[in-house]
Structure formats: C-alpha cells, structure tokens
C-alpha cells in the first residue's frame, strides 16, 4: 500500500518534470544566450550572386531582408547569397571592432568596405559546416572611414533549405566577445568534452564486453555511446571528410541507431528481454542504411527527417511506456532514473525533429546532445556499479570459498585426528582384549579360581593367602584398566582408584574423605602415564593404610597453576620415620611421577603425612 502511494507520488513528480522541461524547451521562459546589447543589425539587403568577392558584385539588384533570415522561409533557392549593410560613421573608432554572428548555416565570409576580414571555412564542396558554431570576426578600426561604410557577408549552405542567417552584431570587439565565448562554450566546447567522455566510456565498456561476451548489456551500451558520439561530431566538425549528403545521412543514421539501442539496453538492464520488439528495432537499424540511396537532399530530408525520425518518437514513447510498466511492477529507483533520462531524451528529440522538419524555430539550435548528460551519467553509473558489484561478489565468493576450503581442511584435520585416535583406541582395545583373554584363560583365571577356592576356608593362613591373591588380581586389574583410553581422564582414574580402595579401607576401618573437584575434564595421559599415576596413588594409599595408623585419609584435588593440577593425599597418623621418607618406595614414586612430567612432594610431621602429586595438564 505504501509502495503504491510512493509510486504514484514518483510518477506525479515525473509528469511534473516532463511538463517543466517541455515548458523550458518550447516556451523558453529563460533566455540562455543573451544577445549583445549594442550593434544589432535587423534589416539588411541581399542578392543571389556567385561572386567570389564584393569587387565582383557589379550590376547587382539588392533586395531588403529582415533578420533573422531562414532560407526555407524566405524561399531562397540558391546555395549562396550575398548580404550587404550600409552605414554612416560620424566618429572614427579607435578600438578593435568585430562582427558577431550568433548563428549561420553553413558558411560565411565577412568583408568590411570590400576588404576580407575572415571566413568560417571552405566554400568548396563539401562546404564547411558551421551551423552550430557562433562566429566572431575582429578587425582593425582603420578599415572603417568617417562617413559611409559597407559590410558584405557571403553566406553559403550545403542545400538551400538549410541556409540561415541570424541577426548580425557590429560593435567594438570587447563588447561582443563575451556573448560569443559564452555561446561557443555551451554549444561547442561542452559538447566536445561530452563527446570525448562518451567515446572513452564507449571504449571502456567495449573492453568489458570483449572480456565478458555473454554480458551483452555492455556491448549494447558501448555501441549506443559510440553512435551518439559520431552523431555529435556534426555539431563541431567543420571540414567533413565526405560529401555533405553522405555526412547528413550518417548523422541521421547514428541518431536513429542510438535511440533504437536504448530500449534494448533497458530490456537487458531490467532483465526483461522482449525478443519481438528487439528484432523490430534491429530491423529498423538495418533499414536505415537505405537512406544512403536517396537521390538528392529533398529525398534525404523527407525520408530521413520525416520518416526515419518519426520512428524515434515511437521508440521513445514505447520505451517510456515500458519503463512506467516496469516501474509500477518493480518500483526500483533504477527504473525511475532510466525513466527520467528517457523522458529528457524524448522531449529534446521531439524538439529537434520539429526543428529539422521546419516545424519549430531553427534559431534555438539542436538540443538532443544535452540529454546525453543525464542519460550517459545515469546509464554509465548503472553499468559501472554493476561491474563493481560483480567484482565485489566475485571477491566475496572467493573469500567465502577460501573460508570453506579452510573449514573443510580443518574438518578433515579433525576427522583425521579423530580417526587416528579411534585407530589408536582400537589398537589399545585389541591389545587389552588380548591381554584379558590371556588373563582369563591364564594367570588371571587361575588366580580367580584360587581365590574362590580359598574363599571356602576361613582359617588364618587361607585368609592371608586369599588376601595376597586378591592383591595380585587387583594389580592385574590396574594394569588392564590403565590401558583403557578413558583413564586419560584424571577424575575417572581417581574414581576407579577409589573403588579399589573402598574394600581395603573398609577392612581396616579407615574413613575416606573424598574431595575431588576443579579437575580439568580433558587431560591427555597415555596408558603408560596412567599406570604410573595409578601405581603411585596405590603405593601412597597402601603406605597410609599399613604404616600411618590413621583413622581418616583425605584425597583432595585442585588447580596448582595454569599448567598443573594437584592431587593431595593426607593421613592424620604418626608421620614418616626419617629413613622411611627417602626409602626405595618414595624414590620409585618420585621417578614414576617425573615420567609423567610432574613432581612428588612429601610433607610429614607427627600430625600426619601429606603427599602431593603435581601433574601437568598436558603431559610431555
């Protein structure tokens, strides 16, 4: 709903823009080229004569002519006319003087009192084309005399229908030069720069298209830009490299081709190909070549300006309709901007078609070239943005691919690690199973059988023997357990040890205070490490039970530092005798713990003994 409202507002704005632009172009509320305030010549005499200089103008009949003079309106049928203006000077001027001709078609030569002061180009065929170039001829004031003076203008056109002479300004050079420079800048210099930019853009886009042939849009727009640039040449090239008729044909064709390519560009840009319309447009472009067959200028102007250009209005209307439909459908800002550019071209194009068909004043000059500024800016920006977007996307994709590869690599590494560990576990587990089978069938089985046999007898000797046998079995169990990969987990190792001690402690009535906490869940001890730790713990516990005379043993754990954990076994008995503490048992334990990369600390007094195992979280 909101979108619809926005669309309506935007289309209303567009209509307003269209109306404003039409008003500016057709009603001219603002004068862009203010004429010089002095020296205007509105009335002049003319004569049809092929004379090369005023000296040859003998026996000539002069007729009155109001300026501006559009030859097609004043029914001039020749290619060359002479204009003459007589005037009186009461004072000898001292400043450099000048004749300013804001608009003339096609070529002019200027004479002051019969002396040539300049001309705008060659009068030989093909005649120099100055229809878009203002002219300023400066001359020394010495050419003028007090009293009567004469200005002669020789004006020639490629065809009589194209001849044109706007008002003439005769004044000191300084008072005319600004008007001339300003007009020349707007009508010529700006267009030269614009055309240069368009050509560069066309080449860049052609390069992009060459590298990405499937991206037709770059090729289409490059071609359109190229045709438009060639069309613009007519606005500032004076000496043309071919006949006037061919040059004009080429001029018509390039405009037609440019306009015909625009809807195709729009289709591609908005991803809405219209094959039938496009085929028709390409057909139209080819058909345009028939203009070269025109016999004379009249034929060329009829088929070119009237027939061929009329289609351009149709294409413009089609493109506008298509874009409005697209805009209503998608409402993207892109479609709106294309619409804006398209409308500008349509209004300017309509103006120029009216001008060339003599249905509108010729003195405004052609203006479609200016619509290239918004059109080329918007379209080029879209294409550059599209190109940058695709570069960015490629870069993003490549980064994401890199990341994926890296992730996959990491996954593979993890999987490999896991596989390696699984295999290691499998080997260990097979080894354990083999040992267990051996135990079951061999010594272990025998021991268990022996123990169960002795269980039936209750006298002292049997009891002692049973006890010894059970210790053997327990020790075997410990060796087997140490092979279990789960024993690399210290809490589980301690838990398993506690289970072994439970019966021993119960038999001698010692209470066990179990304070296991703060241990890391993942330690990575090998089975060899585990066995060292298990045997040490067993030895410490056996010593405490056998020798300390305690009634309570505390087993506590904690974090020693960032890399080490601590297992502390405390009894509250009589403490160690001096020779006991450095005896073989302790040396053995110290050695075992050093094998894991840890240290064993003994602290004994008459209050009891504390033995600390400081173990690395990651063993060597």
């Amino acid at each position, binding site marked *: 709903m909101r979108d619809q409202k926005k669309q309506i507002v935007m289309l209303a704005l567009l209509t307003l823009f269209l109306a404003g632009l039409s008003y500016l172009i057709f009603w001219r509320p603002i004068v862009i080229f203010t004429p010089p305030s002095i020296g205007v010549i509105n009335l002049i005499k003319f004569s049809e004569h092929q004379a090369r200089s005023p000296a040859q103008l003998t026996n000539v009949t002069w007729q009155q002519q109001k300026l501006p003079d559009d030859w097609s309106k004043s029914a001039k049928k020749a290619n060359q006319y002479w204009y003459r203006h007589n005037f009186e000077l009461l004072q000898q001027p001292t400043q450099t003087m000048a004749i300013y001709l804001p608009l003339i078609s096609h070529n002019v030569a200027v004479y002051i009192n019969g002396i040539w002061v300049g001309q705008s180009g060659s009068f030989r065929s093909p005649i120099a084309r100055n229809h878009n170039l203002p002219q300023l001829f400066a001359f020394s004031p010495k050419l003028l005399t007090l009293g009567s003076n004469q200005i002669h203008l020789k004006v020639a056109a490629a065809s009589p229908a194209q001849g044109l002479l706007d008002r003439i300004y005769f004044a000191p050079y300084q008072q005319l030069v600004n008007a001339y420079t300003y007009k020349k800048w707007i009508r010529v210099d700006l267009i030269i720069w614009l055309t240069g930019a368009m050509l560069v853009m066309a080449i860049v886009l052609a390069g992009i298209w060459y590298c990405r042939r499937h991206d037709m849009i770059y090729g289409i727009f490059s071609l359109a830009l190229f045709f438009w640039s060639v069309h613009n040449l007519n606005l500032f090239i004076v000496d043309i490299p071919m006949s006037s008729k061919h040059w004009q044909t080429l001029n018509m064709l390039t405009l037609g081709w440019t306009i015909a390519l625009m809807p195709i560009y729009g289709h591609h840009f908005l991803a809405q190909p219209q094959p039938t319309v496009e085929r028709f447009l390409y057909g139209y472009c080819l058909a345009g070549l028939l203009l070269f067959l025109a016999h004379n200028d009249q034929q060329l102007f009829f088929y070119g300006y009237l027939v061929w250009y009329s289609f351009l209005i149709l294409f413009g209307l089609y493109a506008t309709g298509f874009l409005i439909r697209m805009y209503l459908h998608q409402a993207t800002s892109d479609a709106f901007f294309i619409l804006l550019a398209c409308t500008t071209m349509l209004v300017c194009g309509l103006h120029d078609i009216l001008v060339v068909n003599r249905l509108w004043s010729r003195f405004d000059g052609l203006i479609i070239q200016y619509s290239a500024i918004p059109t080329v800016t918007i379209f080029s920006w879209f294409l550059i943005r599209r190109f940058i977007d695709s570069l960015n996307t490629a870069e993003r994709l490549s980064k994401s691919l890199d990341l994926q590869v890296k992730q996959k690599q990491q996954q593979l590494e993890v999987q490999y690690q*896991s596989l390696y560990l*699984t295999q290691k576990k499998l080997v260990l*587990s097979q080894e*354990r*199973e083999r040992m*267990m*089978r051996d*135990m*079951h069938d061999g010594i*272990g*089985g025998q*021991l*268990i*059988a022996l*123990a*169960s*046999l002795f*269980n*039936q007898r209750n006298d002292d000797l049997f009891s002692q023997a049973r006890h010894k*046998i*059970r210790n053997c*079995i327990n020790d*075997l*169990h410990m060796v*087997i*357990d140490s092979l*279990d990969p*789960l024993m690399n*987990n210290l*809490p*589980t190792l*301690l*838990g*398993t*040890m*506690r*289970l072994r001690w439970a019966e021993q402690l119960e038999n001698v009535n010692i209470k066990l205070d*179990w304070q*296991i906490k703060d*241990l890391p869940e993942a330690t990575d001890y090998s089975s060899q490490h585990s066995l060292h730790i298990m045997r040490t713990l067993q030895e410490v516990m056996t010593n405490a039970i056998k020798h300390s005379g305690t009634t309570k043993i505390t087993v506590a754990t904690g974090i020693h530092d960032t890399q080490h954990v601590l297992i502390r076994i405390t009894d509250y008995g009589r403490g160690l005798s001096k020779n006991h503490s450095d005896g073989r048992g302790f040396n053995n334990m110290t050695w075992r713990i050093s094998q894991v990369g840890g240290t064993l600390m003994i602290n004994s007094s008459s209050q009891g003994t504390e033995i600390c195992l400081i173990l690395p979280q990651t063993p060597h």
Partner: protein
Amino acid sequence: MTKISVTLVEDDSEIRQYLIDIIGNSGDLVLLDAAANLSDASLALKHHRPDVLLVDLGLPDGSGIELIKQIHANRLDTLAMVISGFSDQRTVFEALEAGAQGYILKHDDSQKITQAIALMLAGGSPISPLIARLMLNKFTQPAIENPQLTLQLIEALTTRQEKILLFVSQGFSSQEIAQKLNISYYTVTTHIKNIYGKLQVNSRAEAIFEAHKFGLLK
C-alpha cells in the same frame, strides 16, 4: 515367602561351583539351572524363566550378551546380572546396553555377591566411575564414540542425571552425591536406574538404525 529363582551361566567349573555354593547358602535364592555354555543356557532361560540370570560374558560358544538380548526379545521378566572376571568394564557396559541390570566380580567374596544381587532385586543399579564415564560419553558425545552414527539420540540425559554421572565418574558414592545435590539417596539411585533405561532405549534405536543402514531391515 517365595524364593528368588536363579539361572547361572559360567563356563569355569570352579567358579561355577563357588557361585552355586553362594546361591545355595543364601536364604532368599534358589538355583534353577547352572549352565556352562550359551546353548544350554538359552534353553534353560526359555523353559524356566528365572527371576535372575547370572551370566558370564566370555562363554565357549558365544557371548553372554546374546542371552541378555534374548530376555528382551522373549519379553521375560528376568533380571540379568553379569559375572565379570577379567572381561573389562567396556564389555560390562555393552551388557548394560543390552539390558543387564548389574554386575558382580568373580573374585568378590560371597557377602558382596549376595549384596549385589539383593541391591538389584531392590531396584538399584550398581555403577562404577568408568561405566559412568562411558555413559557420559555415550550420551553427550555420541558422534565421537560412534562416528558412523548420525542418528539423534531418542533419550537424552537431564541436567541432573548428567551431573550425577559426572560425580559417579569422579568416584563419589550415591550417599555423597545425595548430600552434594541435597536430594535423597533413593532419588540418586532412581536417577541411575532411569539412566540405565535410557541407555537401553537408545541402544535399541541405534541397533535398528544400523540395521536399516546396512539393509538388514526393510
């Protein structure tokens, strides 16, 4: 009071005799059969439907786990108890997964063995630190323990059950755990029993999944 009927399966004759004596001396138990191999035991199980099956895992003609599976397959009310010698705790764990309710060690004295049977009959489930750790791994890292398994666990542990298993794996007794968590001893044993139940459900689902995967079931 009706005595608890027992079927014993043990291939070592001396141990078998040792256990027969223990059962005989116990006031509450009555021995129905004493088999030395899987096939005899299987028949005995089917015909006599004992209250308790005491089963050794390493039998000459197969694994005792097969017998435990038969209990479930034949919908018997028999409680299975594993006799563990040097068969390690992983094998015991497999038996627990298959549906065993407890285990005893062959070299335990008679008192301990009768206590373990009594505990099982009273609804308790013995558990060791290593078995608790295996269970934790099974529930919390099934993919690491079994990389081929992509099946989601049907039954997951509650936070409390996980905590209890962690304490067991660290060597704490049920009483100590009850104190630490400020719950009753019976709640702890009930949780452990429930964990056994979940383990068995998952293990059956896993078996079905594997069978489907290898095309054994259609």
